[in-house]
């Protein structure tokens, strides 16, 4: 396949940035999207140009490092991570636009690399269970009904890639935050901090500059791990419940 990519190039946070067009010949349908960028980068280096910077690491769809907007969609046309998107999803002769996540909460560092440390700060403000090491009760001491465990698990699969934010017209981080709240609040272990957790996390989310949620649902459509919309509904419920109890 022969592909043309138009890639967002931005040398640093203060640069204006622009789309630059590159031809990539002989693309194999078995390549991942990132491997296609690897091939292009090898050529750019040999041509004396700077390769395109993009985040990636495990390339198995689980670390959450990678993530670019492809043809206007976070992670591209399939509901998966950019590293698990394969060139067989495109056709010979296609022109593909590649841009970084765009959101006030995720400033661009260079090219397609953005700063997602705001997500870490949301977690730091309450996305945990206070369980000091070394004196935990036996794991079987607290049974967890399977339905609750499954609900917790379904939400715990969030990889923190940020696609939800990138896809949201408001740049909201509700899906990310709601996943963690749903995971921990569903478990008996998470009950003592149930209210403080949701209040703190929502407050940090707002402070970090993420927009509000207007139930558009684009986040859910772009989430590679299928975090459900019900988690946002749950977050709102948990938030109101916590406000009432405060």
């Amino acid at each position, binding site marked *: 396949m022969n592909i043309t990519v138009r890639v967002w190039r931005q040398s640093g946070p203060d640069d204006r940035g622009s789309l630059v067009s590159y031809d990539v010949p002989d693309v194999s349908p078995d390549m991942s999207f990132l491997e296609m960028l690897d091939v292009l980068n090898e050529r750019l280096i040999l041509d004396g140009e700077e390769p395109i910077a993009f985040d990636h690491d495990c390339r198995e769809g689980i*670390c959450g490092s990678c993530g670019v907007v492809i043809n206007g969609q976070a992670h591209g046309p399939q509901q998966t991570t950019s590293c698990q998107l394969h060139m067989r999803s495109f056709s010979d002769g296609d022109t593909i636009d590649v841009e970084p996540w765009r959101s006030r909460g995720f400033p661009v560092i260079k090219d397609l690399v953005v700063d997602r440390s705001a997500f870490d700060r949301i977690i730091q403000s309450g996305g945990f269970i206070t369980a000091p090491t070394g004196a935990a009760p036996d794991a079987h001491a607290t049974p967890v009904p399977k339905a609750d465990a499954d609900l917790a698990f379904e939400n715990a699969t969030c990889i923190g890639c940020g696609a939800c934010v990138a896809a949201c017209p408001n740049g909201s981080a509700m899906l990310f935050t709601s996943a963690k709240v749903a995971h921990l609040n569903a478990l008996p272990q998470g009950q003592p901090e149930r209210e403080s957790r949701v209040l703190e996390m929502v407050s940090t989310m707002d402070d970090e500059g993420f927009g509000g949620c207007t139930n558009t649902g684009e986040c859910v459509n772009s989430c590679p791990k299928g975090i459900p919309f019900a988690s946002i509904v749950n977050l709102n419920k948990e938030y109101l419940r916590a406000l009432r109890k405060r």
Partner: protein
Amino acid sequence: MLEYTVGSDISDTAAPTGPIENRWDTRKREAKLVNPANRRKHRVIIVGTGLAGGAAGATLAEQGYHVVQFCFQDSPRRAHSVAAQGGINAAKNYRNDGDSIYRLFYDTVKGGDFRARESNVYRLAQVSVQIIDQCVAQGVPFAREYGGLLDNRSFGGVQVSRTFYARGQTGQQLLLGAYQALSRQIDAGNVELHARTEMLDLIVVDGKARGIVARDLVTGAVQTHLADAVVLATGGYGNVFYLSTNAKGSNATAIWRAHKRGAYLANPCFTQIHPTCIPRSGEHQSKLTLMSESLRNDGRIWVPARAGDTRPPAQIPEDERDYYLERIYPSFGNLVPRDIASRQAKNVCDEGRGVGPGGLGVYLDFAEALSRLGRPAVEAKYGNLFDMYAQITAENPYETPMRIYPAIHYTMGGLWVDYDLQSTIPGLFVIGEANFSDHGANRLGASALMQGLADGYFVLPATLSHYLAGGGFSPVSPDDPAVVSAEESVSARLDKLLSINGSRTVDSFHRELGTLLWDHCGMARNASGLQKALDRIPELREEFWNDVRVPGTGQQLNQSLEKANRVADFLEFGELMALDALVRTESCGGHFREESQTPEGEALRDDEHFSHVSAWEYGSSGPVLHREALAFDYVHPTQRSYA
């Protein structure tokens, strides 16, 4: 070829004696403590935020130490432990199927082909029980039964169900547990986190590890960080092979630089080849993807009985299939340990019976499980793995068997540590995959997560406190010659890499090195192949330093520079790895020397000459080999049999 000399023998002086079941308790009881009010005065550097590093940072900070933590990723949550799929072992005996601490200990020593330390392995089995309690308390959503109790499954090399799991994302869930515990400490101000920052050298002052030189990967600034102790939790070196199941960023730089500063490197030739990876599809391939070993619980492995049979799998009748693991190893069947499953896959492919493009693959078939359990049950257990396979290969594994082939996965070698997890440099501790200590020559499935968390949550906090309680930490001046020279050498090296401006990319060198090592130091090794690798690596290294092209500058985010710096270390590390493989003329576990095999083609150990750890010292005139003798008082070495 690299000349080496033999130095004096070494031993582990930190391990207590006495009955094995009491040793860890004895060590903890005898360890000195630091008064809680004095703990905050101690700074501890931890490099890496995976299961070992994240757990250690969270625990030490919780105890009151001031932790300075580093990771090269943008967030601690992205460490490669996140990608582990299958599960974590613990001797809970919740299934009442005969499991015990002793049995987990026994399975691990045997599975490691008698090249691990008994004391360490026993401790690992003991601590495993506590790990599950800790993780459940943190809210790790392990799989559960309808009654609300934890579920288990079994893994290769064992005959009990002791593996706890969270669908196929166990590593992710355990890592998030550690990351969240660490996040709590960051918020409390007890951990100072430096993300997107990479350690490039170790600072040794008066013989003790006192800091690191690190590069801020966003601004390019090279900085020194000082502390009372340094902990390396930087994972394995499998990416020396270029293609592996490791994350792209995984590297050997931290341990290699520590090695050059005096830490011994143990058993670098012990690399685990994982039997269930998706076969490579072409030259563009950047990495390999693992399919969890847990698939072997229900998947049956087979190839056509006759060489050259290229019919699609559905058209090959039962009696023309060879379920070779079930045939050769009837009592363990598809659940033989990884080294054995990998080698047999290679053997059938060498016989021309491999399947898929290039003949480098075997079938992992779920047809029988699907008809026995039904699709919903198979989906519940393995759904995400099936989806991942379908995504990568564009084949539907519910309808046609998966194709798998072995790939480089985990490295059992690493920096030498004693029972306290301290390296040969006082104050330098090494935990998780970065050390060599617990797996011997082959790692059993679901044991990596166990070791990472055991080291981080439970072992290191006790032994590091003992070291810090010993005192003697006069402040190190930033102008100390050792600090200044380490920083200068890092900067000079980066400048050098940027100035070569040659004609080859970093990846082209990395690929060539990787191919060389896979061909000659991969699933099977022999003396002449290893000699070839040892002849070629120094030439390749020279070409690299004369002809590599690294664009851009050092004062910016420069991913080519990061890569070049790591590959330069792989080009040195790979040579030691091949040398270690050449010197160890026996076969054991993941190290299969073709010259040493049984008539049935199994690995043949040579206990008389090689029942030791090979600990390599970096010498100015070539590597120096020190041997640590291994003693087996409880699990007596026998020819491993899984028949």
